[in-house]
Structures are given as C-alpha cells and as structure tokens.
C-alpha cells in the first residue's frame, strides 16, 4: 500500500521506539486500558494497518496531542490518526457520532451552495456592523450550538455577543458574514475530506467577497482549521487570521481597551487546538492578566500537560469522556478558583454537560466562563 508507506514516513512513525510514553500520558488510556496509542502505531507498522483502519479505536483518539509532547522520537501521532481517518472514510467506515450524528448532518447540509442561512438574528441592536470592511468576525457554529444545546443552557451566542462588544469597544466595525459555513473542523477530523473542502471553499470565497483582510475567530478549533488546515488542503489564504486573544493583546497594548478592576480568581483550561496544536499557551494568560485584580491560578496539569475536555469533533462521547471531564473539573475545583475559563466553545459545552450529571450532584460544580465572555464582562458597561 503506497498510501500507508507515505503516511508512515510523513508522520515519522518508523522512528517509534516502542517506549509507551504516549500510552502512559494518554487521557483515554488512563481510564480505558483497552486503548493504547503505542499499540495502534506499532500494529500499523507491523503489517496490521488495514485492521487499524477498520478498528473503532481509530475514532476513540481525542487527537489532543498530549502523546506528541512526550514522544522522544517526535512521532506525529495526531497527524497519523487524521490521515488514517481519511483512509477509513474511503473504506466506508461508519464514524461513531454523538448526538445521533445531528451535528455532522448539519455540517453536511451546510456544504450545499444554495443554502441561505438566517444566522445573524443574534446580533445585538446597538452593535456596529459593517457591510464591507477590513476586519471580519467569523462566528462559526455558535448559533447552531446555541439552538441545539438549549437543555444544557450553554448560550453559546453569549460568546459571539461578547466578541462584538470587545470589537466595538476597540473601535472595530467587523463584517459579519451572512452565509458563512461551519469551518469544517469536525468533518475533517472525522475523515470526511471532500465535504471539508467544500465548506472551506465556501468560507474562503465568502471572506474574500467581503473584502476582509483580517479574520477574527473566538473558537480555538476554527482558528486551528483556518491557520493550519485551510493552507494545507486548499492553498494559501489571502487574509490574516487572528484569535480573539491576539486581537485583545494588540488592543490592550495600544491602550484601546481598559478593564475594570475585579477580585476574581480564575483557572484556565487550555484547549488542545489552541495549546498543543498551535503553541498558544501564553496569549490567553496574558489577556487574563491584563485585567487588574484578576488572579490566575493554574491547575495541577496545565499548558503542555493540560488534559483535554474529553470529546473531540462530536465523535467519541462515552463513559470515558465523562470520567476525563470529572477529573478535569475536580482539579479545577482544587485550585480554589471562582471560575474555570475555557478558550473553546466546545470545552465549555462538554464541561457544562458533565456538570449536569445527576449522580454527581454538586461534586463537580464550578462556574464556567468562556474567555471571550469574561473579557467582555471585564470591560464594564
């Protein structure tokens, strides 16, 4: 199999020393002894690649990249899993989808070119929005999450409203794209490359039509997809992509934004897409520390060693995810922080869901805030 050889070479799988450090740090292996990144990789190297492709475990991996930080030979396991999922898709694998596959279906619906979405109903009346301009705000799936997870009370659109407030305060009138699609992150990581490319092309066209030179996102996953995957699978982009934290750092250093004093103590959950995938550990912390009086305490495992929120790409939600989430929430509680700040809307949803567990009662309770909302709140009225 030529693809396999190429893939193993590209991801440096041949360098694997069989040391098992990946398995020892993997958050899934910690709670599920049957899953082992080492075994998957060694199995594929020793002639069982076809079995790996058909195995459900291929979709159990969170692609959080924690194994990659510990690997002495720098095997790109996350890349290996992603590319293997493309192969799996060609074989017609049925991807295990949580929520009955509803969210993936929504994304596939969005690949349709003739769709006229009504996704801007949330925009607050006072917000200043431009028709065409230099800066665009990419909202992503937030309106859909808001509608879909009403029972979890996640109110994902709060994040979007907070972003609008921050942008307007910094004298930026962002363009809101009327017909943007999902960034395609979840379809890409489920192995559906064709539909990912369709979504990506829609988005790139929409942004280019708007004339924006800078695109700001509030989602760690959108950011990774724009930053790494669009250039890889589509081609170089004609615009710059910024995460809201980068925008905030710039605006604060230029003195455009002033925060009110608070006495809150918070802890930060590094999203894997922002942290390990892109190496942005300091930016969110810098942003949080720019609020006077706000103290940041770190969880036992932070930055490079941060634990994932337990589910990725709406694919692998099960009892193991719940245990990872409980572990993470408990370690957030142990820091004594008032609230847990997340940088990714999905971490937010997953933790909220974990806290709803009736059996756990108040054991896991901690206030969760999104990074964007907490910054918007700190701006005052």
């Amino acid at each position, binding site marked *: 199999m030529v693809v396999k050889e190429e893939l193993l070479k590209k991801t440096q799988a041949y360098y694997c020393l069989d040391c098992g450090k990946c398995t020892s740090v993997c958050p899934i292996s910690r709670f599920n002894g049957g899953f082992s990144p080492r075994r998957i990789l060694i199995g594929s190297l020793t002639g069982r690649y076809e079995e790996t492709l058909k195995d459900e475990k291929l979709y159990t991996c969170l692609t959080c990249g924690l194994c990659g930080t510990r690997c002495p030979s720098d095997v790109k396991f996350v890349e290996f899993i992603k590319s293997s999922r493309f192969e799996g898709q060609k074989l017609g694998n049925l991807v295990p989808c949580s*929520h*009955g*596959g*509803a969210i993936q*279906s*929504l994304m*596939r*619906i*969005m*690949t*349709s*070119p*003739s*769709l*006229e*979405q*009504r*996704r801007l109903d949330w925009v607050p009346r006072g917000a200043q929005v431009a028709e065409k301009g230099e800066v665009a705000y990419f909202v992503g799936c937030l*309106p*859909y999450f808001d*509608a*879909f997870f*009403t*029972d979890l009370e996640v109110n994902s659109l709060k994040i979007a409203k907070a972003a609008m407030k921050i942008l307007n305060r910094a004298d930026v009138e962002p363009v809101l794209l009327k017909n943007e699609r999902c960034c395609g992150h979840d379809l890409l990581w489920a192995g559906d490359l064709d539909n990912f490319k369709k979504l990506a092309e829609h988005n790139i066209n929409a942004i280019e039509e708007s004339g924006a030179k800078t695109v700001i996102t509030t989602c760690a996953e959108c950011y990774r997809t724009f930053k790494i995957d669009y250039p890889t699978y589509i081609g170089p982009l004609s615009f710059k992509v910024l995460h809201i934290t980068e925008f905030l750092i710039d605006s604060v250093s230029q003195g455009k934004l002033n925060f009110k004093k608070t006495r809150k103590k918070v802890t930060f959950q590094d999203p894997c897409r922002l942290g390990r995938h892109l190496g942005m550990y300091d930016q969110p912390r810098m942003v949080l520390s720019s609020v006077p009086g706000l103290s940041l305490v770190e969880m036992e495992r932070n930055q490079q060693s941060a634990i994932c929120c337990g589910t990725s790409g709406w694919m692998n939600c099960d009892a193991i995810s719940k245990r990872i989430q409980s572990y993470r929430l408990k370690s957030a509680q142990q820091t004594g922080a008032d609230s847990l700040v997340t940088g990714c809307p999905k971490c937010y949803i997953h933790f909220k869901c974990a806290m709803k567990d009736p059996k756990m009662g108040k054991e896991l309770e901690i206030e969760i805030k999104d990074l964007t909302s907490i910054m918007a709140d700190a701006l005052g009225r």
Partner: protein
Amino acid sequence: MAKKKKQEEFEPKIVVFACNWCSYAGADTAGVSKIQYPHNVRLIRVMCSGRVNPAFVIKAFERGADGVMVSGCHFGDCHYMFGNYQAKERFEVLKSLIHLLGLEKERLRLEWVSAAEGGRFAQVVKEFVEDVKKVGRSPLALTNI
C-alpha cells in the same frame, strides 16, 4: 390523443415519523376506511414520537427530503406516558435549527393523531403536502439527492 403534460408538477418527498401506538395506527385506519391521502409521504414507524431524535429529521433534510412530519399520540394518550412531551421539547430545538439553516418553517410539522382519527391523518397529510408544494423544492434536494 392526450396532450403532453406542459410542466411536470412538483411532487415533494415527505418523510413522516409516526408513532406505533397512535399515528401509525391512525394511518392504518385511514387505509382500512379507504380514505385516500397523497402518495408523497414515506411513513416511518417509530415506537414513540419521543424516539425521534433531532438527528433523524436533520438527516432526512440532508438526504433531500422536502418536508418532515413528526406525529404522535395526543397529550395524555402516550403509551409511554410522557414520550410526546419529549417529542415537543425536541421539536422546539428542531424548529430553531431549521430556521437557522434558512429552510421554510412549513417544511417541518408536529402533529398529534390518535389511532381512531384515520380521516384526520389523511387531512393532516393533505394539508402538509399542499404547504410544502407551495414553498417548493428544498434547496438541499438540488444537490443532495
């Protein structure tokens, strides 16, 4: 000689999720009593309207359905006590998703039909098909058929 049809009339594809205890039996009653209803519907039997995951309905739209109807027992009649209340809750989520996607609200319908209401089932389906015919083909049907 019969004239060639000027324009082929649009026949929507409609998926109906009917609960085993009331609506499916209602459709059966319509059949037994020889009450005719449009042939556009594809009837899918589920054990309870509460079983209809939003994913089913979204999947139906993804695959090019022009309209989807969820049908269950009247409140208080549910075989599983509260299944239809759950269906209603889930339906609210669906309504807002369909709105976001830009699909017309006429494409989605929730109805309560009991086992005895064969006539009503036929009536409801007839109305629904007419509504969907008015809004035309689903934008997704063009690409995802």
